[in-house]
């Protein structure tokens, strides 16, 4: 009965209507256009200048290590390191002791000492220059960067190389090209051959993979909106109790705090899942219609979508409930807004899945290998948020019970900054 009442309260609120409209708008404007056409099969033939089959990420130490080391030496000589704390460029200049740390990393990788690096004064960055030919014609010529002679030490293992890159990233201050998040994206990108492009196309359109490919793209878009919108629904419902002055009345009821909060939480989860389930069903029907000749396997897609999106909704709702109960619903919106903003800005479209980011992105139908490389991070991330949501839910129950008993009222008055009586 209470369950139905809570569901009814959620669904009938204006905030839930806005939430459902937001989910639908995201789906219609971002994902539905992807369903209009099936991906085109790569065309085999002579490529025109500027044409290609796209690029892919290969975690091949033979490609990754030399490229990253060259970049590190170049940035050391320039004295400036590019970082992208929120995907916006930030130039970092290091202090002497930090520069020595980077030099130590370079020395371990190449044998070049700090003295040798500092002595090298012939450095020139890579550039394009106008060149005059003997026949009087001008053309633009690419000039490679002038770097000291070095070679990558043969006894450096790939694992040690990754550790050194992490050390370099920490010295620079994070979000550099050498961070776990950006390393592959920056230095392991290679052009695809026709065969590779064809293989990727066949992988995407394979009966077993096709629904999974589309569900990754679906989750990418929906994950953005589902990492913020649930907090409004939660805050709106918490605020509703206060506005209608029902808090004290509910406190006096027989029902246990555990049952009340869990029922409220689960009813919110269920209601907020309805628009997601409906849009997902629509997406799967469209995929079915797009490939009528294929016997598409939907099982993996459903599992992936649940693992991807449910922890996000649970974590955002749980955190919203905890902060609403502890401080105020508006403060919950503010905190969640800041968390969401940082998460949304610190992710690349694909290839930047970390263990901690609230938002997981993979904004492409292809790049399955890239997703598979980061699958460990993905699972740890989602399981982490699932556990976090359960912990915050438990904390919410304890704090609610604490408030209900009256013991926490003094703190509540101090922190909650509830609606004050204005003399205006």
């Amino acid at each position, binding site marked *: 009965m209470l369950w139905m009442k809570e569901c009814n309260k959620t669904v009938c609120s*204006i*905030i839930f209507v*806005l*939430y459902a409209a*937001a989910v639908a*708008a*995201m789906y219609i*404007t*971002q994902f539905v256009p992807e369903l209009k056409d099936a991906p085109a099969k790569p065309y085999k033939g002579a490529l025109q200048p500027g044409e290609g089959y796209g690029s892919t990420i290969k975690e091949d130490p033979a490609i990754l290590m030399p490229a990253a080391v060259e970049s590190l030496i170049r940035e050391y000589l320039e004295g400036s390191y590019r970082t992208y*704390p*929120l995907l*916006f*460029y*930030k*130039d970092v200049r290091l202090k002497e002791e930090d520069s020595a740390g980077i030099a130590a990393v370079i020395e371990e990788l190449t044998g070049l000492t700090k003295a040798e690096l500092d002595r090298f004064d012939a450095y020139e960055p890579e550039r394009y220059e106008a060149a005059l030919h003997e026949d009087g014609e001008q053309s633009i010529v690419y000039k490679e960067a002038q770097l000291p002679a070095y070679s990558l030490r043969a006894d450096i293992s790939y694992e040690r190389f990754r550790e050194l890159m992490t050390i370099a990233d920490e010295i620079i201050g994070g979000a550099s090209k050498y961070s776990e998040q950006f390393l592959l994206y920056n230095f392991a990108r290679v052009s695809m051959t026709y065969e590779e492009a064809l293989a990727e196309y066949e992988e995407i359109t394979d009966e077993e993979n096709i629904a999974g490919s589309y569900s990754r793209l679906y989750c990418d878009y929906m994950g*953005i*909106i589902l990492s*913020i*919108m649930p907090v*409004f629904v939660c*805050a*709106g419902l918490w*605020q509703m109790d206060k*506005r209608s002055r029902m808090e004290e009345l509910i406190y006096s009821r027989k029902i246990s705090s555990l049952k009340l909060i869990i029922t409220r939480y689960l009813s919110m989860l269920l209601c907020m899942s309805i628009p997601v389930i409906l849009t997902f069903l629509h997406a799967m029907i469209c995929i079915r219609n797009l490939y009528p000749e294929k016997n598409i396997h939907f099982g993996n897609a459903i599992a992936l979508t649940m693992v991807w999106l449910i922890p996000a909704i649970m974590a955002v709702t749980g955190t919203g409930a905890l902060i609403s109960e502890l401080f105020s*619903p*508006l403060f919950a*919106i*503010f905190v969640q*807004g*800041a968390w969401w*903003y*940082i998460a949304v*800005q610190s992710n690349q479209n694909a290839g930047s899945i970390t263990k901690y980011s609230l938002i997981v992105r993979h904004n492409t139908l292809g790049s399955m290998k890239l997703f598979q490389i980061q699958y460990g991070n993905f699972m740890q991330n989602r399981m982490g948020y699932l556990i976090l949501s359960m912990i915050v839910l438990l904390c919410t129950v304890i704090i609610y019970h604490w408030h209900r008993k009256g013991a926490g009222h003094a703190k509540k008055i101090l922190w909650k*900054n509830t*609606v*004050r*009586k*204005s*003399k*205006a």
Partner: protein
Amino acid sequence: MQKRSYGKILSVNLKHNFKMPIVSALGVLILTLLLFNTTALQSKEAARPIEFLLCFTGVMLLVPVFYPEQDETIRDVIRSKKIDYTVVCIVRVLYSTAAMAALTAFMVLIMKWGECDVGMDHFWSGAADAWFLGAVGFTAAGLTNNITAGYMSTVLYYLANYGLRNELGPFYLFAMSYSGSSDTAGPKILGAVILMGVTLTLCRNRK
């Protein structure tokens, strides 16, 4: 007599209803300074921190204009007063707008000290963005009589700016980062005034 009443409304509201919004807006300013590079930026790059995050100061300051009356007993008290409720809202909007402009100006000055290529264009563009985004939330909060809906609508509008640049026309929030010009500041300010005017009129008629 009338002037004294307005003064009283102003002082009482500043004392009781302004702390939370201004602290939140300062939070946005601090967050912007922490998250974005604010030194040695070219004109278009310098518009990014102002347009991408600082515009939320408008949300923090303008959406809570209706916050005190979310408590129905306070709403009844306010409605029973001789001074029109709309006047109280206008006073709140005016001091919130002044605070928002001051915060934008402060940010532009900080960037100027950080040797960024910023000027009055950045101020107008930033202030117009903040005001328009705040007005969107103000309208949603006023029309639905629900402050959470106000905050929610601003996030939705902000998100829409990532994919609907052409569709939003002069109301595109990141116009200066994109084009380097502050031409859309005028339409945004006009749009904000219209939105707020319509909202206040409808709220007044609703009583």
